[in-house]
């Protein structure tokens, strides 16, 4: 296990809302090795972001991590004090967010926001921080970094901002980078740029990456291994090739089938009927059974466990 950079065990994060407790992340386990890219896919609201925020220690009230362990290089993050955790953030552990448009503070310059990281974690003075910021911007392929460093976020395009976010996340050479839908808000051609960049940096720095997305195309392109989530749980986990070649869980199968593909013409797409269950009102048994074409009585009554169905291929289904 020492090879594993990050080990998440039975993570449970709940939101106590007015209408009841939302178990957004409900016993999720996975691991990321050094230099590995792990993709987490799943539909909106299945708990991807909450999982990543839990790792970062940034779950805001009314949310709360209520169980599990998160081990990063031998340290249980959940056992750390706030201060210790803060020192890890932006340093060993960093994150980029979905919305490059809103993730940068509009009233400070790029250099200011980027330099902050160096000043906080590397105790640099303003000048050094600036120099390093320019270097970092260069690194993520921002042309004219000397000038950009003094501009404000709104003067940059979405793609540029996402690069700034990446520069910021990689500033302290983190061991683990969490990218929460880093390209969803971007256009296709810009998305391609960013994905290429991430690939390159991943190779260069040997950073462990958790890539969160709902785009299976991006997963196929980028990931080494894949975790599929549904309603706060992991339903399938495998290396990227076996997952696409032989999906075991009906949800994964459904997802793959419902995608229109560029290289084939079908009159009609497969589709998963219904929609994601209300987290406050989870069905008994297998959470997917109301939408599952192959559901049986057993699925309605008992909850399947995540089990190894093939070598290094886990699935949460009685019939996988």
């Amino acid at each position: 296990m020492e090879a594993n950079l990050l080990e998440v065990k039975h993570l449970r994060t709940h939101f106590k809302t007015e209408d009841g407790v939302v178990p957004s992340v409900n016993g999720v386990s996975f691991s990321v090795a050094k230099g590995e890219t792990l993709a987490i896919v799943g539909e909106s609201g299945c708990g991807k972001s909450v999982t990543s925020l839990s790792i970062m220690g940034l779950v805001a009230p009314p949310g709360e991590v209520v169980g599990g362990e998160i081990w990063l290089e031998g340290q249980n993050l959940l056992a750390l004090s706030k201060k210790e955790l803060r020192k890890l953030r932006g340093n060993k552990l960093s994150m980029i967010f979905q919305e490059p448009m809103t993730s940068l503070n509009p009233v400070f310059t790029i250099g200011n926001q980027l330099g902050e990281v160096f000043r906080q974690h590397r105790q640099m003075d303003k000048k050094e921080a600036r120099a390093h910021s320019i270097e970092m911007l260069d690194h993520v392929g921002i042309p004219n970094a000397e000038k950009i460093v003094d501009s404000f976020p709104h003067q940059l395009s979405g793609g540029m901002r996402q690069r700034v976010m990446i520069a910021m996340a990689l500033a302290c050479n983190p061991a683990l980078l969490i990218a929460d839908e880093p390209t969803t808000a971007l256009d296709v051609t810009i998305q391609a740029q960013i994905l290429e960049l991430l690939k390159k940096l991943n190779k260069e720095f040997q950073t462990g990456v958790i890539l969160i997305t709902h785009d299976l195309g991006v997963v196929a392109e980028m990931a080494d291994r894949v975790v599929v989530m549904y309603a706060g749980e992991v339903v399938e986990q495998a290396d990227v090739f076996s997952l696409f070649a032989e999906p075991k869980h009906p949800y994964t199968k459904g997802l793959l089938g419902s995608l229109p593909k560029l290289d084939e013409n079908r009159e009609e797409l497969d589709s998963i009927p219904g929609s994601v269950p209300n987290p406050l009102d989870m069905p008994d048994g297998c959470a997917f059974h109301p939408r599952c074409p192959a559901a049986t009585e057993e699925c309605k009554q008992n909850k399947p466990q995540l089990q190894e169905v093939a070598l290094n291929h886990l699935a949460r289904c009685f019939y996988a």
Partner: protein
Amino acid sequence: MRQYLLKSILQIVPVLFLISIIVFVLVYVTGDPVSLMLSDTATDEDREILIAALGLDQPMHIQYFRFLGNMLQGDFGTSFRYDMPALPIVLERLPATFELAIAAMIVATVISIPLGILSATKRNSFLDIFVSGASVLGKAMPHFWLGIMLILLFAVEWKTLPVSGRGSWDHLILPAFTLGTGIAAEMTRLIRSSMLEILGQDYIRTARSKGLIETIVVYKHALRNSLIPVVTIMALQTSTLIGGTLITETIFSWPGMGQLIIQAVNTRDMAIVQAAVFVVAFLVIVSNILADILYRVLDPRIKYN
């Protein structure tokens, strides 16, 4: 920026024009000042002569254009109470009112920023509830009542501050508090809600994900952003603030415009009322422009749009 300034100055013109109409109508409907200007024993003939002399026998629109024309030359008529041109009398009072209004604004700011931040960051804590309650209280107390209470407590009971009048800085404290409390209450609420909204923004999460200490997150990243809307909304309070001086100045016998206005209205000294309303409106507009400029300084996004 220069262009912006020119633009805003040009925008004032129609507003001032509309204000001139409002002021004129206000004064016009006030009826004739003649009877107040005449002595008890004046005859009807005296009356007619005076009316003609004042041009009050002409149709309304003629009167308005004459009023407008005079006004453009800075002539708001002659105060019959002081028997002097109205505008200088009003302007003479401006510094006192200015001093009071600025002091009140400082009081409001000094109170509201820390309280607003505290209650937003410690949302739903005891402190938050206390601050909310206090700010409602602050708004619910009419100026005259608060002013008298402050005098009774600080001046009469504890003898720590002077009662009234304008003089050194300590004369300013009680009236500034009286005037500033309501604004402070309003601002506290605003800062709190603005702060709450900002604290939920993505870039705050980004700041935290960089491992910044909470102080920097709150005071650097959140505060500046949350002040942006506050500035504009506060500028709208200028008119409330100046309105508040009417009563505050009367209570503290502060020789400013507020007292002047009240007395002018009471004596139907309409030239003064006209000039004062105009000066006040002008001040409010200017302060709104200043707020806009500040807004631009605080928020770099605006400059380029």
